[in-house]
């Protein structure tokens, strides 16, 4: 077993679970605001009001009786994703890339019949995928066209960028790449690869899978050191804007890059995980303290991003 002393961790500014829960989540995220991020439909409506782009919502299925006539609605769209509004951990998300010869074809190539789609919708509405099994609604969104930038970096899924936003300032970011082990999902604990991103430039830092360093994507064998996210400041602006939108002080914004529409907000997380520190090789605490020192003044989203970039750029030069 490999161990590290608490003093060492402290010196590196690593944020632990207890401190995250007490000082960041309990201290900055009022519980009454949680539904805004735990319900994807509410997040979407809110984002629309604040001019934050999200994947296009086609329609919402709210009642079981709507399901019988659902086929007509699907025939008009080429590819789509069905999501439970209150789903968690990527559960219950069904992505259909095309419709041919009376069959819905999943991204993995598996064909599904109309009955399969109907049953899936019925399960979502009954609450099979929602927290604590409460009744839910199903969102049908346009499929995301993956930016060609990520070709060879993902397996049957779309990578997303997680940005930690503290008091409206972006603090740390990573790219989450889907793998065979993660079943096409971008969740680290399920086996997705986390690639730390330089908060100033959007360049790839180091990659981890299951907490262990990796150099190439485990399925495509593509080396991971050349990743460089274009239009980085724009992505940070989008993430930072979620602070005004939700009122939450400590959030993780998940952003995808669409070939045609550019960065889109996929979902928000009021309890973002700690693994991002390992992909960045740096503790969150030091950065959070620095932000705390400069926060307080009223600034616009763009000003905050510029301010944070400035702060972290100076750090990188001095070290």
């Amino acid at each position, binding site marked *: 077993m490999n161990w590290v002393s608490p003093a060492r961790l402290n010196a*590196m500014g690593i944020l*632990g679970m207890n401190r995250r829960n007490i000082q960041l989540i309990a201290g900055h995220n009022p519980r009454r605001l949680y539904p805004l991020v735990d319900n994807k439909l509410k997040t979407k409506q809110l984002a629309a009001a604040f001019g934050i782009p999200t994947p296009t919502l086609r329609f919402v299925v709210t009642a079981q009786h709507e399901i019988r006539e659902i086929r007509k609605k699907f025939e008009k769209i080429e590819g789509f994703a069905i999501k439970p509004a209150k789903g968690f951990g990527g559960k219950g998300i069904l992505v259909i890339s095309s419709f041919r010869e009376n069959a819905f074809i999943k991204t993995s190539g598996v064909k599904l019949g109309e009955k399969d789609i109907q049953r899936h919708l019925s399960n979502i509405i009954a609450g099979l995928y929602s927290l604590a099994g409460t009744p839910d609604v199903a969102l049908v969104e346009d499929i995301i066209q993956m930016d060609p930038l990520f070709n060879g970096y993902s397996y049957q899924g779309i990578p997303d960028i997680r940005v930690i936003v503290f008091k409206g300032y972006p603090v740390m970011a990573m790219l989450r790449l889907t793998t065979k082990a993660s079943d096409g999902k971008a969740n680290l604990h399920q086996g997705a690869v986390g690639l730390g991103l330089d908060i100033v430039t959007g360049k790839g830092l180091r990659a981890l899978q299951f907490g262990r360093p990796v150099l190439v994507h485990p399925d495509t064998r593509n080396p991971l050191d050349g990743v460089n996210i274009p239009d980085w400041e724009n992505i940070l602006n989008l993430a930072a804007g979620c602070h005004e939108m939700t009122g939450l002080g400590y959030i993780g914004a998940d952003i995808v890059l669409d070939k045609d529409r550019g960065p889109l907000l996929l979902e928000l997380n009021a309890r973002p995980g700690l693994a991002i520190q390992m992909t960045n090789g740096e503790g969150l605490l030091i950065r959070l303290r620095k932000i705390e020192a400069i926060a307080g003044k009223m600034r616009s989203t763009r000003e905050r991003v510029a301010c944070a970039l400035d702060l972290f750029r100076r750090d990188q030069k001095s070290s």
Partner: protein
Amino acid sequence: MQTDIPRVKLYWIVLILILSGLSLTWLRHTHMQIPLKPGKDTIVWLVEARVDFTAYQRPVLASLSIPNNPPGFKIFNEQAASPGYGFSIVENKESRRAEWSRRTAAGPQTLYYKIQITPQAENKAPPADPPSPLAPVYWEAPEAIAARTILDAAISTSSTPESLSRELIKALNAEQKEQNAALLLARRSPEDLLTRLLAQAGIPARTVQGLFLEAKRRNQNLIPMVEVFNGKEWVLFHPETGVQGVPENFLLWDRSGPSLLDLVGGSAGRVSFSMLSQRIPALEMARIQSSNKAFSFLSMYHLPIEQQGVFRLILLIPIGVLVVAFMRIIIGVRTSGTFMPVLIGMAFLQTSLAPGLFYFIIIVAAGLLLRGYLSHLNLLLVARISTIIIIVISLITLSSLTAIRLGFHTGIPVTAFPIIIIAWTIERMSILWEEDGMREVMIQGTGSLAAALLAYFFMGRPLIAHLSFNFPELNLVIAAVILLIGQYTGYRLFELHRFAAMKDTNV
């Protein structure tokens, strides 16, 4: 990031809780001589008779036969708890009776009579109060001949009252019953028949009743025995096994004969017994019981025994909760279901460790397999949990029956397992399996079991069991410690391993 303002308030609360908990403990220790350590010597049996009956708006008099200097034991305290009733103990030459009276009462009534006794080997022989003169024995026509035949056979093979009794018991309990014995037993109970036969032979005998003392028994009934007068003293016989003398841990409750409970002004009277063994020095116990000082309010011994037994377990929960809080917040162990480990640990306390562990693993593993099949059926959550609850109940029933069939663990209370909690555990584990794979299930399963074992270990310590029950105010201290743990913002032990990979990045 700092949330320091409410923290000062919290430290005050913690301080007040700790001070009040400890000072109450100290006061009760010094004023009431409640020992801080469990006594290692005397066993004290608390035996409680509970009388239930229905009263109908008339003056009530309930008279219960109670032990009178029972052989093998010493009574050092007796009490009656029955609000609204006048209580007295009526003694005469042959019997002692507890009498409750009330001007008027209606509806179901419950009266309690409690004694505390300690085993005392010197007090072995039942006192030789002389028998009352024998009344002639009357039999019905067919019985008379059968009785005569059995008695003649027994007399011919015996010489003393004791040997005659033994021969009679043998004849009445033979595996292949003789026709005469079968005829008599069809109409009368063995103990009644035995006394009548002995009386016919001119030997005074009487039916008595008593209790086998076993830890934590509830709803027990008296067991009939037969006492035979051998000319000098009374000798006790078990009417079925023929064993002579007072068995170990047998409390002779009623020797007076006529009836256990006499009831005037009520009906449907029923007497049931519960008992509890304690390891507190008899002397201290007596003091606790008799003291009427201010601090005795907190003494759990004021409660009826049945409730005392329950509270012994309930008052252990804070320790278990503390263990779980420590394991999760300081160590960083992941458990499935926050407080499931405490309840499992308590179940282990009741089943004892090895069989409890065995049953628990079997039930959860089998439940997981069946739950795996359920997920193909696409059920709604409530229906699924309900099905799992029924599965768990069936598994528990099945394993109990199997254990009995195989002839071991006859006394294991598998019912101690919290059924609903186990059902939820299975459901969560199963979802975890589908979503995050086998590895996560093993991690959380091992974590839960480790926490349960640690909780079991602490809750099973005699010192902790003693303190938690005798000083319930110590819960304030535990609450304070938990409040402090809740403020801990440092690293969890397992995080020191999780973030170990960070070492090779240069700071």
